[in-house]
């Protein structure tokens, strides 16, 4: 007999933890599956461990995550860490692997809270040994207390300034900072400043980090229109273009970042409809006010639906949980409205700063839509810009045909680090809107799964798989 739960939650970041904790209070039977060893998601990663260590550079907003993690632990829901979810199908079937064994469980309601990942950063040399995402550097600092000395930071976004600030606070030497915030964005962000005013202390904090970086003795470059990472076997340096001049810095570590985007693989493979979010230059999962997706009984919430940040994710998780509780008839619709009201108000307040941040930190076209023919688009199958353009020139209509013709997006990452680039590159080449170009059709398993695990899977009569 397949185990059935009222609610299955995928992801134990802020959205998933908040959803679980709230739903547990209302008597729902809950299973929460998470890929990491400990709850917290990427944002509060290892926050329980770091609570006992004197890591001030990680900051108050990181350590504040412990409150939510503790509340989640205290809710005593069934929580399986190190579980890799490879399938969510219609009817609430969730397939996951744990410790080499595959399982199928059924959720009357399913909440997908898979969070965000780094946006692809396709520039020449970005696959070389020694290049990492800046998020990776922050994860190493948070969880492994490992610093990358003398790295060049290149990118833009609120997280970009935050991580450099953390490095400066911890006294970790930085080789240089290349700030890629497009100059024109300041003007574009200005009209959104008024509605962002309640978040002024946060904006001021970010501004202070930027001032701190500029005033530090770390070389700081802006107005950079192009980048190339140099090296054969591994990174030896980075060239940046200011005006019409290329300059080069010697370096053995490059950290790249241009914002985060929803981690959509499970949602899309489950059949959830998505649409192009022009302001954030990425796909968003279509959801209603209760985070119900286009697939019945499947909700997608937090940054996994669209980027709103950790505090918004927490509220969105709770609202999704209320929606699930109403569907489960644990509470009435009226009770649901009443229960969700404060979370909706808090979410609205939290989201007021978003248009300002989205406009200010939207990465420039240059770094989203690669122009050099030799730049690798698909890291797994090593498909270049030139190859993509060639196949598109042959009449390929979209990402799925491109995949068949070139293997672009067919490697183990399943498009996670090339999908956005491909959609935008085809859109530019064919002069068609990105929404008309579309995205890869994703299919389960969205994470690798042994044939042996699949063969040993106990399937009960009536399970469709």
């Amino acid at each position, binding site marked *: 007999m397949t185990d059935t739960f009222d609610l299955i939650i995928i992801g134990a970041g802020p959205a998933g933890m908040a959803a679980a904790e709230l739903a547990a209070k209302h008597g729902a039977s809950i299973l929460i599956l998470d*890929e*990491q*060893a400990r709850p917290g998601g*990427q944002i509060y990663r290892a926050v329980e*461990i770091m609570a*006992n*260590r*004197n890591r001030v550079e990680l900051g108050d907003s990181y350590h504040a995550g412990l409150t939510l993690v503790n509340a989640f632990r205290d809710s005593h829901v069934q929580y399986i860490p*190190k579980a*890799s979810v490879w399938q969510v199908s219609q009817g609430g079937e969730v397939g996951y692997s744990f410790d080499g064994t595959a399982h199928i469980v059924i959720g009357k309601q399913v909440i997908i809270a898979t969070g965000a*990942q*780094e946006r692809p950063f396709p520039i020449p040399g970005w*696959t*070389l*040994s*020694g*290049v*990492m*995402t800046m*998020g*990776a550097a922050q*994860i*190493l*600092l948070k*969880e*492994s*207390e*490992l*610093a*990358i*000395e*003398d790295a060049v930071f290149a990118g833009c976004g609120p997280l970009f300034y935050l991580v450099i600030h953390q490095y400066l606070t*911890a006294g*970790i030497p930085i080789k240089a900072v290349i700030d890629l915030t497009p100059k024109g964005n300041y003007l574009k962000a200005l009209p959104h400043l008024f509605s962002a005013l309640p978040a002024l202390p946060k904006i001021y904090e970010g501004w202070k980090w930027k001032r701190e970086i500029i005033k530090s003795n770390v070389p700081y470059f802006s107005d950079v229109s192009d980048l190339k990472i140099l090296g054969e*076997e*591994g990174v030896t340096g980075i060239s940046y273009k200011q005006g019409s001049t290329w300059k080069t810095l010697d370096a*053995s*570590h490059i950290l790249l970042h241009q914002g985060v985007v929803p*981690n959509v693989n499970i949602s899309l493979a489950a059949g959830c409809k998505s649409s192009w979010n022009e302001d954030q230059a990425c796909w968003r999962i279509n959801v209603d006010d209760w985070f119900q997706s286009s697939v019945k009984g499947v909700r997608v919430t937090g940054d996994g639906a669209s980027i709103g940040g950790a505090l918004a994710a927490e509220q969105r998780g709770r609202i999704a949980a209320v929606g699930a509780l109403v569907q489960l008839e644990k509470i009435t619709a009226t009770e649901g409205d009443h229960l969700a009201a404060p979370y909706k108000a808090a979410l609205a307040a939290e989201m007021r700063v978003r248009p300002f941040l989205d406009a200010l930190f939207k990465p420039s076209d240059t770094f989203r839509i690669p122009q050099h023919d030799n730049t690798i688009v698909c*890291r*797994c*199958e*090593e498909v270049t810009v030139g190859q993509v353009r060639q196949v598109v020139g042959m009449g390929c209509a979209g990402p799925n045909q491109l995949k068949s013709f070139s293997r672009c997006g067919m*490697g*183990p*990452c399943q498009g*996670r*680090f090339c999908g956005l680039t491909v959609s935008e590159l085809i859109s530019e080449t064919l002069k068609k809107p990105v929404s008309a170009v579309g995205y890869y059709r994703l299919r389960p398993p969205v994470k*690798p799964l042994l044939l042996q695990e699949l063969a040993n899977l106990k399937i009960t009569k009536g399970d469709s798989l």
Partner: protein
Amino acid sequence: MFTKVTSGEVQTITIQFEGETLVVRKGLNVAAALLEAGVKQFRETPVSGQARTPFCMMGVCFDCLLIIDGMHNQQSCMIEVAEGMKIERQLGMATIEFNASAEQGL
């Protein structure tokens, strides 16, 4: 260079990487432990043979794939180090070796 910034007490364990014994911090994931040990190449891509090292550290890029205790395609950033763990680089495409008894079984 990858440098430890912890001020806390450090417990270590022993793992094997490419036949060499490494003493690494307990509790780290395999990717972090090898980066700290100075490993400059985790895998070679199946297409061009380019050397790769971990890129995302959160399980989405698949550039940290290694052979861990004989099992190919392991996401080393998602797996904690364990005493006596045997780790090898994953060079190019994986191959499947059939032995006689296994073939008879087929």
